[in-house]
């Protein structure tokens, strides 16, 4: 192992499934509450056969999950440069705060005068998000970015309907867009039209113009886009869409490049979702939870979902009913625990430091790009923003694919970048370092990438095809898994 990278090594245990650990009987757990038999009138409904939930003792449970945890790479254990995912450090103090009984143990239907503290924090977050985006009206309800998209499109449809233009249902989506954009459009009953990106990886204004007609409800656009490029024509783009009677929906997944630098509202964007689990550092948790607040301008504000947090003379309250509102998109006011962590992240930076998030994020991406641009093909040269896009074009000549590079990185101690996304280039490798990584880590990663490129050049590719060799598992049979899916464990599978 070179001195540059950490590699991976061993002190981890094989661990069976929890079902294989289970005893014949579950270990008795001592619980509070009212002793009592099954109430009489429920006996005829009683469950006949036990479900088969293990019931391990506490020591066994802890050891089981601690061992499992050690099979994961996390941002706390290593670099995690997944493009479009903004895997940054998750402050530990935020975990403590979100667990304060006075914040975590609140029922969503407590009388509002008993939850003024949390409402104040959430209300303040709304204001901060509105200010950062330059779009002052906010809903915290959407549970993640994708739901934010759905919410935003619903708002746009509501505004169009109010204008008597309910017939507009076409949504323009660049071919570089994330899959959730078209999927959200469909869910909202709209048709997606894909816009081919220009040769520079940016939106092609002519292509856009060609699609702007009376059916257009909205353009959904990500800025910087998923190739990491800022859409420099953004003002013109928004103007054109507005002129054509449509709205501009901003996918805020890449907000990390812009915090404190430029505002979506100033660009002409009408509506933006913010993935707080990206830009504002709430932990990804192996898939979620996230949070996808939506910020909008004056025009869309009347339609925001209920319940809404309002500030009155006698404190904060929840507005549950509003005729113009599109109604709720979730069964609660939002992912409160996640939102509190986002508020804590923003508070730690504050006015004077918030722009440094974007500065260091963009600095890091450009640094990686600068160090790798000779060894890897850069499809869209020039400045990138918070992430940089490479392809495997050069390595392909030696039979090395993006996947091989990714898996080899694992053996060198790094989580791979996002691979094969965006779809607009062949063999994409999208690298997003985020602002919380040190130069030392970036250098180590670049050394690893350069070593892979050199090895590929030298035909020294055996390790790469077999990679990863060091983790607890080597490449997994994903095809087999999909062909004959085994989604639950049964004694026969063992």
């Amino acid at each position: 192992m070179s001195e540059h990278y950490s590699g991976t090594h061993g002190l981890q245990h094989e661990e069976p499934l929890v079902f294989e650990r289970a005893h014949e009987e579950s270990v008795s757990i001592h619980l509070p509450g009212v002793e009592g038999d099954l109430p009489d009138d429920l006996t005829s409904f009683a469950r006949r056969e036990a479900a088969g939930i293990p019931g391990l003792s506490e020591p066994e449970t802890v050891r089981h999950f601690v061992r499992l945890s050690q099979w994961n790479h996390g941002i706390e254990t290593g670099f995690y440069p997944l493009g479009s995912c903004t895997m940054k450090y998750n402050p530990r103090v935020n975990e403590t705060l979100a667990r304060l009984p006075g914040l975590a143990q609140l029922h969503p239907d407590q009388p509002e005068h008993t939850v003024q503290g949390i409402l104040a924090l959430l209300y303040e977050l709304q204001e901060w998000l509105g200010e950062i985006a330059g779009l002052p009206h906010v809903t915290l309800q959407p549970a993640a970015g994708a739901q934010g998209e759905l919410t935003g499109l619903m708002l746009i449809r509501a505004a169009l309907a109010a204008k008597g233009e309910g017939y507009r249902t076409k949504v323009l989506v660049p071919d570089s867009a994330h899959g959730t954009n078209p999927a959200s459009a469909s869910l909202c009953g709209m048709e997606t039209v894909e816009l081919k990106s220009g040769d520079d990886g940016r939106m092609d204004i002519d292509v856009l113009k060609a699609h702007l007609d009376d059916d257009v409800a909205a353009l959904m656009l990500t800025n910087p886009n998923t190739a990491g490029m800022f859409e420099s024509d953004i003002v013109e783009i928004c103007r054109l869409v507005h002129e054509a009677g449509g709205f501009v929906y901003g996918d805020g997944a890449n907000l990390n490049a812009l915090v404190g630098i430029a505002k979506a509202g100033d660009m002409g964007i009408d509506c933006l979702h913010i993935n707080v689990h990206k830009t504002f550092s709430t932990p990804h948790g192996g898939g979620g939870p996230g949070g996808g607040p939506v910020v909008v301008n004056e025009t869309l504000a009347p339609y925001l979902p209920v319940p809404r947090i309002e500030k009155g003379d006698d404190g904060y309250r929840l507005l549950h009913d509003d005729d113009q509102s599109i109604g709720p998109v979730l069964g609660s006011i939002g992912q409160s625990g996640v939102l509190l962590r986002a508020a804590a992240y923003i508070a730690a930076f504050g006015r004077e430091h918030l722009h440094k998030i974007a500065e260091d994020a963009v600095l890091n991406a450009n640094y990686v790009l600068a160090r790798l641009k000779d060894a890897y093909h850069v499809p869209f040269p020039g400045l990138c923003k918070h992430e940089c896009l490479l392809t495997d074009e050069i390595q392909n000549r030696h039979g090395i694919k993006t996947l091989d590079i990714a898996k080899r990185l694992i053996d060198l101690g790094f989580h791979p970048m996002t691979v094969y996304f965006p779809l607009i280039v062949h063999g994409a490798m999208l690298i997003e370092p985020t602002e919380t990584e040190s130069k030392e880590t970036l250098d180590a990663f670049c050394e690893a990438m350069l070593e892979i490129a050199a090895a590929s050049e030298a035909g020294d590719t055996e390790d790469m095809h077999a990679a990863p060799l060091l983790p607890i598992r080597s490449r997994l049979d994903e095809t087999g898994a999909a062909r004959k899916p085994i989604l639950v464990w049964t004694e026969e599978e063992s």
Partner: protein
Amino acid sequence: MRFLPHTERDRSRMLETIGVSGMRDLFADIPADLHIEPGSLDMPDALHEAGIIRKFTQAAEQNRHAGNTRCFLGGGTYHHFVPAVVDYVIGRGEFLTAYTPYQPEISQGTLQALFEFQTMIARLLGMEVCNASMYDAATSVAEAALMARRVTRRERVVLAGSVNPRYRTVTHNYLSRISGSSVDVPCSGFATDVDAVVEAIDGETACVIVQYPDFYGSVYDLASVRAACDAAGALMVVAFSDATAFALIEAPGSLGADICVGSGQALGIPMGYGGPQLGLFACKKKHVRQMPGRVCGMTHDARDRRGFVLTLSTREQHIRREKATSNICSNQGLMCTAAAAYMSLMGDAGLATVARRSAAALSRLVSGLPDHVRAASGPRFNETVLSFADGDSRDHFLAGAEGCDIFAGIPLERIDPKAEACHLLVATTEMIEAEDIADYHAALEAVR
């Protein structure tokens, strides 16, 4: 800034490598008039960690919470006990700070936990397969309706009026922008009107959605609904709000559910003022390719060792884009791990105790009610409706109870805007002790 590792010297060296002379040059592609002055946002100054702790602690202290009150609130969110172990497990950085397990070789921890979760949930619900989470119960119900439409290629969705109004509103909201209709079937006496539901099922019906136990806590026979679905070729979707129920009463799968959806919050997740919640989604295996959301499958590695991967991703937005079964991407993964750890600790026996005590507390509460309050009739699991003479006497009681550290129930109209303002939705869990019920009764007596 303590989260930013660079020193100024690091920054200048990096700028040099990039070949630009200053930080602002990195943003040269952003039109000048879009730039805002650094530090010009209208925001408070940065807070040090001690200040943030102070701020949040003070806010927390302004709230009253389930730790220092007796919480009889339900309506989809329940104050069950959460062992400290659950929180420790999901607080470990390796679970907490991992992304969706796209690289399975270094994500086996999350993946095995998800597989265990899926298995346990499927078993608890009596269903064949289960995904690795939706946002919450309300969106799970909506997604179930959408899935039923895909499976049956029909467009009409029937919802029992005894499904949690929040689930129904979100579902109607999700369905209202696409073709087809969704209808609510009125209920009666704070219970499901099974006959009316059966009546509403027709040959166009993609699915009927019932809640079991229903929104009002009522437990009832689903057989005629199942039969009507069979006759009409519709799917039966069973929703629920407290998953511990199925350690006590028959699981929806055994009652014939085609799709079973609801909340997993009861399984080791704090109430959290509404989130993060956990939406559960289970269905029959034959429909799995129409299921929304992430799912983990068992497979093996190149050295033939058992391992796990995300699978069936051709259903998902990142592959199928506008044709995906759902737009969901980030989900509630960590909450699945929490539920898995919770269920491992509890086991069948522990879950049954939780459910039995939750039900026993309700029985005890109801059986000791003074006669100026009426409880809804019929079998109930851990939730029911109490009716007062009028809104004033109810609100008077609520205020009095609050004074005795009791959150005595949710005014029904808060969740169900159509309800008269004199009812309380009341729920119990194993966190309610006999003494708390006595105090509840005393508070009722006090406003007699």
